[in-house]
């Protein structure tokens, strides 16, 4: 999966969980400040990402994921092929 494909997949998840258009899901976007996503929607995004990418995102790790780019880096570090 290329960087672009990983970003696109994350965009689909965010759109499904929140209704926010996937095109707004860009690496620099802050979930809270730019996308106005609340903590419960972040949990939904995390659980959907866990299912999609076959990774575990524990609550302490989830709390550190402030931007879309943070999630992409987390997924890469977790071994999800870019």
């Amino acid at each position, binding site marked *: 999966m290329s960087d672009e494909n990983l970003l696109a997949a994350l965009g689909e998840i965010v759109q499904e969980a929140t209704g926010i258009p996937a095109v707004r899901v860009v690496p620099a976007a802050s979930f809270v400040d730019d996308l106005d996503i609340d903590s419960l929607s972040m*949990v939904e995004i995390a659980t959907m990402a866990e299912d999609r990418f076959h990774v575990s995102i524990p609550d302490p790790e989830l709390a550190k994921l402030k931007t879309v780019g943070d999630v992409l880096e987390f997924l890469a570090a977790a071994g999800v092929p870019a």
Partner: protein
Amino acid sequence: MIRATAVERHSRILGLGEYRPAKVVSNDDLALTLDTNDEWIQQRTGIASRRIAGDEDSVVAMATAATTKALADSGVDPGRVGQVIVATCSMTKHVPGASAQVAHAIGATAAGAYDVNAACAGFCYALAAASDAIRTGQTEYVVVAAAERLSDWVDWTERSSAILFADGAGAVVVGPAAAPGIGPLVCGSDGGAADLIGMTDHRLLRLDGPAVFRWATTEMGHAARRVCDAAGVDPADLGAVVLHQANLRIVASIAKQLGATNAVVADDVIETGNTSAASVPLALARLRREGKVATGDLALTLAFGAGLTWAGSVVTVP
């Protein structure tokens, strides 16, 4: 040698009762003293308003009021009630319990009485105990009341719990039936996550909202299906899904996972808030009062919360 139980029969809910305190507290009311607003609260919880107990609304008084209505609904004379069970986690004095006082107040002079504390799941556990008491012939009629006065335990300066918790009581009368009216109890727990919902050293409620949300939305969908499987009921045959009214987003997520396509999903949390053990009987009573379920419909009940502990069963609406 202990004599074998002579009776094995079926059980069902015969009557429903609800008690809602008169005082309505809106989100705008909370916004006067908390850093929040109506949109913020509704987006995260679905709650628009909640009922808060007045001075006269003790746990015992609310349980008694709901029970009195349930008895009237069932047509059962209080003198024939053999057991009174009260599910609650919010008594300010843990001793004595609420149940004997409720039995006394309703005139159930011959009844045994005990309290159940399984936090938000308490009603479902108590209902199963009542059902088994009927099925094994211990007694003819059992009252199960669930009453909470959580406002005594809320830190009204702490937003995440102040917007959620509320007060109220629901009750049912359980008795013998010709066919099964209460399905098998399905239950579980995770004490390893006990710290997700609890009390501070100052005896005030605290919860880790996102972590509880994750647990409920990932585990309780499976639990709901197990409750249906144990009862032999296809989710498509449910008339109602009555989940613990913790948060409307949790309710919607579990209901979606269950796929009960023909069922009304109880949403009493919108105007009632989270009343812990009382939420399932309150929500069921509201559905019937509003004509959204009818006598004989099948309703999934499932409640979950502090412990962590959860329980549920399929019931026939009285």
